[in-house]
């Protein structure tokens, strides 16, 4: 019983403190002051993309070229499997009702738009029978199954409820400026 009372009084204290601080601000600041500060915030938000940090974020958006439903698409340099872009998903999304595997193999692909090498993660979409459309098998820097982190041969439906294989997506993890 005592505990309930203590909790109630704690809530009351918080409410009261908030009310008092709001009243205090209202007494000190005019409405015009509030509007001027709001205007500064809006102007600042507009200027934010011009700052260096913001520019570096903008550059990290990957520029795409080509058709993701074809094996020649630049992201697929170490791909092996059915392209999810042909199976109801996209190059980075799984088809409806499938489960994306959190574990993947990796490759390094050069984007022809900016000439940069990107670290790619190839994740299998799992839990349905094989899509079997747009089969794609490329082997740039591919390694044998005993070195499976770089092996496109392996089915990577691990860490999911149903480990049957449906199709594969390709996600950019980062880029190399070497």
């Amino acid at each position: 019983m005592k505990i309930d009372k203590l909790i109630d009084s704690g809530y009351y204290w918080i409410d009261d403190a908030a009310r008092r601080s709001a009243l205090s601000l209202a007494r000190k600041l005019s409405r015009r002051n509030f509007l001027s500060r709001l205007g500064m915030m809006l102007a600042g938000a507009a200027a934010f993309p011009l700052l260096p940090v913001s520019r570096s974020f903008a550059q990290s958006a990957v520029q795409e070229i080509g058709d993701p439903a074809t094996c020649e698409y630049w992201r697929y340099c170490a791909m092996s499997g059915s392209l999810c872009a042909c199976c109801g998903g996209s190059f980075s999304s799984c088809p409806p009702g499938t489960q994306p595997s959190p574990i993947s193999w990796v490759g390094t692909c050069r984007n022809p738009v900016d000439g940069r090498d990107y670290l790619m993660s190839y994740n299998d979409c799992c839990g349905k029978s094989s899509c079997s459309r747009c089969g794609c098998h490329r082997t740039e820097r591919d390694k044998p199954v005993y070195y499976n982190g770089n092996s496109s041969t392996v089915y990577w439906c691990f860490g999911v409820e149903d480990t049957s294989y449906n199709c594969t997506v390709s996600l950019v993890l980062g880029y190399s400026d070497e």
Partner: protein
Amino acid sequence: MRLMLTLALGLTLVCPLAVAQLAPEQISVETMPAPGNNWFIAKSGNGARIFDAETGTMLGQLSLSDWTPAVTKWDPRKEFYAAESYFARGVHGQRTDLVTIYDYDNLSPVAEVIIPNHMARLAVRGHLALLNNGRHLVVHNMNPGHSVSIVDVQDRVFVYEISTPGCAVNMPVGEKDFLQICGDGTLQLIQLDLSGFEENRVRSEVFFSVQDDAVFDRVARTANGWLLVTHAGQLFEVSTAGSTINIGEGWNIPDAEGWRPGGRSEFLSVLQDKALLYIAMHEGGVDTHHERGTEIWVIDLATHRLLRRLEMEEPVATLIVTQEQNPKLIVGAFGDGGTLVYDALTFRLERSIVAPGAQMFEDF
């Protein structure tokens, strides 16, 4: 008119009598005949068909799971062994991995041993290895770390799972030992005790670089050990003596400038008593290791000489040479040409066999 009527009546009475004299046929089921020369198994995605390469006849079929890596056999017990993986509802539901034991006469399952649901579900021959004692079966796991499940196929029990980080492709040596290829450029020898538990583990020196020129995950058994080949075409003969791993001096496939070995299934095989290598080759450079061969090269492992280049009409999917007095070279392709049977010594094409979906062959 009367004559015609009599004749018609006579025929209607005679015909049923003639039919009645023919005994109706009874359906029957064959059993497997005694093994013949040059039989082989053609494993597909969900089964294994047994053929006679000398006649082209199909003799029977094993039904296997879609995920079975390979199938093998042990003659003294007249049994086949396959690692299998099933989902309760086809592609979803409870997963069950197991080793299934098939009898010889009916090619039917007669026993099964449940194993951990970690089986590497890839058609790699080295993912299934019956050790030379005929008792311990090594099933490769990927979860995604590498390990192996040891099954005692004689007593029909799962022994245990051995962690083998970074190492795969299991190659039986000695009586109850096996070698593996490791990503750090070494070989690993695992020696089991009588019960199938790990007794000893040995690592070789580094002899290749997985980044610069990796050893393939497809290997061929030789008279004394195993033959390994790198993506660029360097050959290594490896063997063991007790707990010592012997790695021969590497040598290049002769006269192979601009050519490389490769394929996506088992693309090399050795005729053991004559030390002849049959290997699928293609024209190409770095990272073309999964390209199917346009030619099969025959190389003498004793003299390191290239003996023959066999041009193929269709790229080679997989191949094997039978270990017989009169050996056959069996070549699989995915085109319309079917599975081709050559005399392995004269290289004469003898026949083509329809073996649907053949992805890997096993000598019988």
